[in-house]
């Protein structure tokens, strides 16, 4: 593990962050896949040693700066599901894409639930059901995102 894959990792995470905060028309916004989460999850099963929980945590913190009501909210949620993925990366990696997508769906639901819980705790509860929509779109886009990242960045590492 030299510094080269880390560089790629940080680069893709940054791009994913930009995609996550890019302004979209309001009707499209709830359906926007959680690009940052997908990328971090991809790296945590593709290169669990290089990035892993630290990547998830810092990525989440960056997201908090952009759109969290409380600092550390997305960081905690993303660190948790990254931890699960890093721990189980061998099992998850060997699954076919469809099952991976289901696992990703479950992970993003957990992630969103933590964010939701912290929203409630900090007094900004948003109970609209639209906030759960992006877990579905993220799961749908997962096979393509993973294939893209593998094709583009995953080969030589």
């Amino acid at each position: 593990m030299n510094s080269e894959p880390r560089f790629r990792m940080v680069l893709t995470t940054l791009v994913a962050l930009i995609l996550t905060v890019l302004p979209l028309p309001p009707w499209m916004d709830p359906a926007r896949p959680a690009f940052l989460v997908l990328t971090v999850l991809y790296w945590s099963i593709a290169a669990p040693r290089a990035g892993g929980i630290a990547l998830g945590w810092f990525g989440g913190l960056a997201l908090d700066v952009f759109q969290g009501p409380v600092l550390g909210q997305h960081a905690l949620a993303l660190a948790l599901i990254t931890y699960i993925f890093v721990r189980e990366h061998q099992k998850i990696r060997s699954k076919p894409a469809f099952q991976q997508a289901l696992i990703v769906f479950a992970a993003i639901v957990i992630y969103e639930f933590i964010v939701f819980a912290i929203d409630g705790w900090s007094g900004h509860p948003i109970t609209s059901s639209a906030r759960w929509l992006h877990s579905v779109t993220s799961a749908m886009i997962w096979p393509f995102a993973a294939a893209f990242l593998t094709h583009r960045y995953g080969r030589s590492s």
Partner: protein
Amino acid sequence: MAAFGTGARQLQGRGGSPGFRFTLYALLSIVIMFLDERSHWLENARYFLQAAAYPVQLAVSSPSAAWSWLQESFATRDELRKENNRLRAQQRAIEIRSMRFDALQKENAELRGLKEALPAVAERWEVAEVVDVELNSLRQRVLLNRGTSNGVFKGQAVMDEKGLLGQTLHVGPWSSEVILITDPEHAVPVQIERNGLRTIAVGAGDTASLALPYLPANADVKTGDLLMTSGLGGVFPAGYPVARITEVHHDAVQPLAQVRAAPLARIDLDREAVLVWFRPDHPAAPGTATMSDSKTGNARIQPLPAPPRAVTAPAAGTAPAAGTGAEARTSANAGASGSKSTAAAKPSPAAKPTPSPTTHAAVPPRESGASASEAAGTPRAERPQTPRSEPPRSKPTETGASPTATEGAKSPAAAAVPPSPEPAAPPKPSPAATPPPEQQ
């Protein structure tokens, strides 16, 4: 997924097992959350993080910025000329409308018994570009390209040329995040311009609407009413236009009316916003967050001892009082012409024992006076002519009423109980008379 790269021979690298590292990070984030939420130690950290995030936000906004730049640079000569003509016409209209502004301001000061006209409440303003927009049902925020290096502070009012836009929430060195009035977490204390009824307008998570959830079912509110800032809450000064009522539903079962309003600011179209600095010692300036604190008021503008009251010309903000108030209201609604208000003011000595016009009159905004008088119908514009021909007696009435309203913007108790010997029936202050300070 065929070609996942790394084998996972060993996960224990530097920093211990994943479980240990996760516990560490989880604790760290919990501590950060706690500090960020419960105390404000992290303001400085946020300041630097915002500075670090600014380049990314610029990058994010660059496609749309590039697009508008392209559009502008490829605009044809013809279009430019058309726009130029339109702007020139607009400027002429504004100039004509503000032509008598200075004279009116002096007149107003004279009527209020002040030595000199008050300066405008807005001391300085700066146009900022909208760098990033977040307009979804959960959060309605924009990012402006001005920060502490330009003197921006937290909780500063942001407007566009049509009305109130929001307030700054997090301020970084070169950027500041603005929470819009339509954000579901934002509430702005407002006052109905027609009758001075105070309430709170809460964002509905939609750029086109605000909710007014605290108006009782019998509140005097109509479609088309203009909402202005009431000056309570300590962030926005009194008298700036906010929204216009779009729908009013009275449900016989509900104790509260369901009222919606449309913001005047073009929230989803703005590429620019104006940050405003207010004169802190101005009577219309936003007070401190506590409402009992009336020290911010200018000592010269204290309400005068209540003079014998008369039914004055129905000013723009006359509230319906008992009895004669009803006709005052109808004439105000009819848009009393100058001659009519003279007629209404003349029998003042005779009409002394009637209830005073309640003093909820909306504070006339100093610099947006033109638009306000336009919105309120004609009477305000006509007023200067009338008192001149009046016996001086009508002056104290005017002076007595208006500063009380000004003061009332800061201390609702003063406004709810007018200092007149005959107790008028003030319009019931809505529950919003004691609003919580706005969320910062």
